[in-house]
């Protein structure tokens, strides 16, 4: 139905011509048919959005265009010329650059080295580095993309890393820039900066292809948008002629509720209390500075903040993964003994469940079958075997239940976890943690990289937990998400809770100011227990 | 056919096992007979090899090396009609001939020669694996050197403590260089395959070395002073002939010493320039006295000590 319309809406060759034309692209990974007969045309000098559920094949398609994968069949035309893009070198030569969903940076290299890698001028590095430094300076000024060329990648924020990726592409003279979920890890401010850059690029006549799950971004910045579902291209429309609701329906194949629907909170007794927590990171730098707050049964407390302000360390410390320097975490009235490298086990036993920020690195063992991941962290429970033995049948039973309850697709508990799409991986983790019936649930970035269908589902589950009387601590860099889920918002800046806000009344602007640490003095210090000491 | 089994060093070690092999070859040339032989891969194969050869009718079965004790003790009673000959160790069974060598007396003589040749008053010994048998070499050598020069400085080193020490010319060479750096100018190598490194290093530094087991004088002509020969070849050759026939087979212990020419020092065209008449005379004198029992050379293996 929709393919029809795609032809009528943007059929005639536009004045500026087609930058990219893909025809009947097919790609299989083993048994997975990731791209089926895909057609896509991108007009030069526009920003073209691509949306679709997790695993719809967006990244695969773009990787084919970028020469990282080779299509099994199909044709690619760049600027009207048929091209066999054999590798990324070729794509780069054709003026196609790509910023991958997972950054393609060498962690222990400097920014400069990363930019130069693969685009060196000569056998010796010196001249290339000198030229790149100059060029970076120019690009930085032109696009207002500030980075320290000598900083080491692993030391800089993800936002900065992304700038490096963009600079890498621009340095190579990209005319068409592909961005795969660029805002998944960005703060609102960083995202705004990025969009400004993209608009500048468009104004200069460059072409941008933007993959994102956030329909708001699509509506705000793209000229045209294509929708993919289960390996197929289902529609391409002019952004001006569509609506988020329509896009969502195209993506998922059913109506999606884009707003969270929740009743007012009904808080009970205090379940989690964090008192004067001080935590250092791996390098020994203090990241959490005397943080105190409490969460009561039946409420969701959101922690907002620009990433890198201590949220990660706070979460890891509360959940027993990271030793604290001082302070106490009290759960259900009892202090938790969290020190040692198995603190997480004790936290869980006491009734604290944890959905980590980074599911692939932490929340899952990607080489394990789904059912094995369904008991991660809870494998010691008597429910999964008596004494030292593991009751595989019980674990599989639990996995099957999770899969059913959370609609994990494919519903195959024997499948290796890495073969699930990001959204489904997230559901696997959520199911595991929520189904243990914890008193307190700590969730980091619940919907990072997750498609809107799944987001709707995840948000509903979180609300459901709250309504069952659990205490929920939610950390997210998505201000929207915090605002729609949380009952109270704590804003964290530089390791300190700088203020508390009511999601119903606080505006995005106010929150943004607090997140930037502006009103440190004037903002209310918030909760009762936080009154205990002066600011450090 | 008779069988000959070498020890782990392998049959071409330029030293002990090779001497046994040469004995076999000499026997072959002499009698026109044929023998089967085998190199071991590991210790576990010893019993297997013995049973295999005895079982297929080889007689006699000759073994070279002190590591055969346990295997032969186990297997000999199983094959009472087979004659076994073992070199360098003693196995007490009615169908076993054990052949030992008086390495200490032979070493004594090369010690005499070394001390007389030395200008620095310092001589060295580089042993292979650190085991009592090699200490026996050293102890004889040391006594001989002290007999000539009571003040002589003795340097004693071993290439290692595992069987790999028999085959480590690099370490042996380094030990030699170290010994030379501390003043030694004659170095006795009782180190199996590692000895090559000693001979080479001595040659490179313009010093003298002493070979072992086989006559190694040819290996670095002009630098190898002499070799402490242990006539394993003769012993093997004789064993192959005598033990084949129960009439001539001599079960029990046979000791080959200076008197039997079982051990000694070698002089040939490669080293006659190096050994003066005076040195020959002294060595022959000591040899006669030892044979006559006037000089008792202490055997390290009797009490694990070396009184000097």
């Amino acid at each position, binding site marked *: 139905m929709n393919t029809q319309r795609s032809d009528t809406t943007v059929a005639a060759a536009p004045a500026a011509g087609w930058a990219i034309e893909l025809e009947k692209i097919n790609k299989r990974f083993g048994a997975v048919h990731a791209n089926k007969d895909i057609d896509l045309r991108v007009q030069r000098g526009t920003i073209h959005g691509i949306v679709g559920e997790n695993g719809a094949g967006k990244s695969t398609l773009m990787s084919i265009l970028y020469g990282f994968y080779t299509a099994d069949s199909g044709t690619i035309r760049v600027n009207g010329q048929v091209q066999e893009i054999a590798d990324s070198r070729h794509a780069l030569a054709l003026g196609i650059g790509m910023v991958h969903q997972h950054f393609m940076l060498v962690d222990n290299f400097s920014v400069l080295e990363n930019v130069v890698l693969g685009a060196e001028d000569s056998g010796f590095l010196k001249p290339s580095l000198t030229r790149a430094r100059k060029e970076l300076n120019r690009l930085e000024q032109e696009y207002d993309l500030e980075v320290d060329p000598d900083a080491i990648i692993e030391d800089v924020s993800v936002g900065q890393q992304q700038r490096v990726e963009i600079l890498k592409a621009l340095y190579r003279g990209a005319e068409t820039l592909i961005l795969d979920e660029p805002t998944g890890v960005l703060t609102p401010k960083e995202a705004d900066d990025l969009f400004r850059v993209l608009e500048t690029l468009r104004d200069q006549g460059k072409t941008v292809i933007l993959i994102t799950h956030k329909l708001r971004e699509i509506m705000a910045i793209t000229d045209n948008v294509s929708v993919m579902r289960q390996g197929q291209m289902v529609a391409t429309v002019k952004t001006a002629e569509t609506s988020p609701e329509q896009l969502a329906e195209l993506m998922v194949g059913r109506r999606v509720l884009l707003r969270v629907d929740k009743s007012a909170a009904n808080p009970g007794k205090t379940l989690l209390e964090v008192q004067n927590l001080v935590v250092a990171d791996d390098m020994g730098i203090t990241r959490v500075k005397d943080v105190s707050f409490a969460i009561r049964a039946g409420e969701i407390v959101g922690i907002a903040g620009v990433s890198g302000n201590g949220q990660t360390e706070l979460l890891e410390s509360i959940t027993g993964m990271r030793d604290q320097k001082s302070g106490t975490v009290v759960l259900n009235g009892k202090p938790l003994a969290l020190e040692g490298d198995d603190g997480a086990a004790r936290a869980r036993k006491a009734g604290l469940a944890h959905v980590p920020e980074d599911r692939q690195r932490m929340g899952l063992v990607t080489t394990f079958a789904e059912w094995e991941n369904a008991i991660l962290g809870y494998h010691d429970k008597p429910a999964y075997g008596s004494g030292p033995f593991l009751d595989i049948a019980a674990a599989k039973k639990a996995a099957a239940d999770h899969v059913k309850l959370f609609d994990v697709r494919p519903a*195959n508990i024997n499948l290796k976890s890495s073969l699930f799409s990001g959204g489904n991986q997230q559901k696997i983790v959520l199911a595991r943690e929520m189904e243990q019936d914890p008193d307190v649930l700590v969730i980091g970035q619940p919907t990072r990289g997750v498609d809107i269908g799944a987001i709707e589902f995840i948000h509903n589950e979180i609300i459901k937990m709250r309504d069952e009387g659990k205490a929920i601590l939610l950390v997210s860099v998505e201000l929207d998400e915090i605002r729609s889920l949380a009952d109270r918002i704590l804003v964290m800046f530089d390791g300190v809770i700088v203020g508390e806000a009511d999601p119903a009344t606080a505006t995005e602007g106010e929150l943004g100011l607090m997140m930037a640490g502006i009103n440190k003095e004037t903002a209310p210090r918030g909760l009762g227990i936080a009154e205990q000491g002066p600011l450090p | 056919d008779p069988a000959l089994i070498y020890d782990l060093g392998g049959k071409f070690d330029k030293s002990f096992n090779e001497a046994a092999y040469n004995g076999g070859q000499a026997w072959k040339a002499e009698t026109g007979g044929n023998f089967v032989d085998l190199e071991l891969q590991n210790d576990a194969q010893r019993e297997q090899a013995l049973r295999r050869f005895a079982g297929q009718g080889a007689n006699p079965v000759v073994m070279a090396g002190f590591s055969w004790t*346990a295997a032969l003790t186990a297997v000999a009673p199983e094959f009472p009609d087979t004659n076994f000959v073992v070199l360098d160790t003693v196995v007490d069974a009615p169908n076993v001939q054990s052949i030992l060598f008086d390495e200490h007396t032979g070493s004594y003589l090369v010690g005499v020669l070394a001390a007389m040749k030395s200008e620095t008053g310092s001589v060295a010994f580089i042993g292979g694996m650190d085991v009592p048998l090699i200490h026996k070499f050293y102890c004889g050598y040391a006594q001989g050197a002290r007999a000539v020069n009571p003040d002589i400085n003795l340097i004693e080193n071993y290439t290692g403590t595992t069987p790999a020490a028999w085959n480590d010319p690099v370490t042996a060479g380094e030990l030699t260089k170290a010994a030379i750096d501390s003043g030694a100018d004659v170095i006795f190598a009782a180190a199996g395959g590692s000895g090559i490194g000693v001979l080479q290093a001595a040659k490179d530094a313009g010093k003298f070395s002493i070979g072992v087991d086989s006559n190694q004088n040819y290996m670095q002509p002009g630098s190898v002073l002499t070799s402490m020969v242990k006539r394993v070849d003769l012993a093997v050759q004789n064993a192959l002939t005598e033990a084949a026939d129960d009439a001539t087979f001599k079960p029990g212990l046979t000791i080959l010493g200076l008197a039997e020419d079982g051990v000694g020092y070698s002089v040939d065209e490669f080293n006659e320039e190096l050994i003066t008449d005076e040195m020959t005379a002294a060595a022959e004198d000591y040899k006669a006295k030892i044979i006559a029992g006037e000089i008792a050379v202490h055997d390290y293996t009797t009490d694990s000590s070396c009184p000097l």
Partner: protein
Amino acid sequence: MSARRPLPRWADIALLPAINLLMAFLVSGLVVLFVGENPLHAIQVIIYGAFGYGDGFGYTLYYATNFIFTGLAVAVAAHAGLFNIGGDGQAYVAGLGAIVVALALDQTHWLIAMPAAIIAAGAMGGFWAFVPGWLQAKRGSHVVITTIMFNFIAAALMVYMVNRVLKPATTMAPESATIAVDGRVPQLRQFLSFFGYSPVNLSIVVAIAALIGVYILIWHTKFGYAMRVLGANPTASRYAGISNSRMIMITMTISGALAGMVAINEVMGVQNRLVLDYVAGAGFVGIAVALMGRNHPIGIALAALLFGALYQGGQELQFVIPGITREMIVVIQALVILFTGAMEGLFRPSLERAFMLMGPEQKTEAIAVSTAKPES
């Protein structure tokens, strides 16, 4: 561009290895030809020597016993993400425990001496692996280096112990006193005359028990689960509340104790005394065995049997064909490792293509399941 599809499971675990093994023998055959011998005859001799008669098969099993232990040692550590190169040293040092107990108890009965020696050998071998494990867990010293170093240290220690402590004054060879008959592990030939004089002994029962034990440990216990989490993703294991440092130490200890069982086979079952260097590289063969066996007990049992057969068949080859030296056997073993282990992918593409041609409409369902097997 032809899309390739994964092989059916049976082809993956049986056909492909068989082809690779064949390839290894083919190349070995060329080497045999090079020395002017008949390769077919050589293969015949190897197979006959390894499996053809009681004695030979007994020897095959005796070697395989060692390789099962060292293979399991490597595999257990590998599941926890640790590369234990120190099997040789661990097995060597375990000999101390075995000999001391065996000599102390050899007037009693093997039913008493053997279990006690198993504990002692396991403790010594385990300790020798625990220290590198502890250093890794607490000090971050790379276990690969420390286990290599511990191999060398073990060699020095054992020479000292054998020469200076355990050797009776009267013996020339560097070896301990001999264990009295009552204290020795019984030989299988005592029950089955089929095995002739071969040294295969009851240790093989311990080996089989170890195979089963490791299987249960890794896939059917909570500890094994935790081990595999650690091996696959140390961050996730910390997230799961698993104490990584404790796991590393315990796993290394188990690994070392398994390697230490070689001492039971060698010291109490075969040599009846402690000799120098009795491990003879079995620890290193264990690496190959574990890798070839995909760290799975069944694979390890098969790989150990293969290597046992190569050792024994190779020995036979030397007896029968004098032109083939012991090094030739090492070459054949190396080629087997190369083709079945490192170059196992050599024929995969062609095989996949062959399967595509044979049955183009493979059931995707079956394929999805086959790729889902957790890789170990």
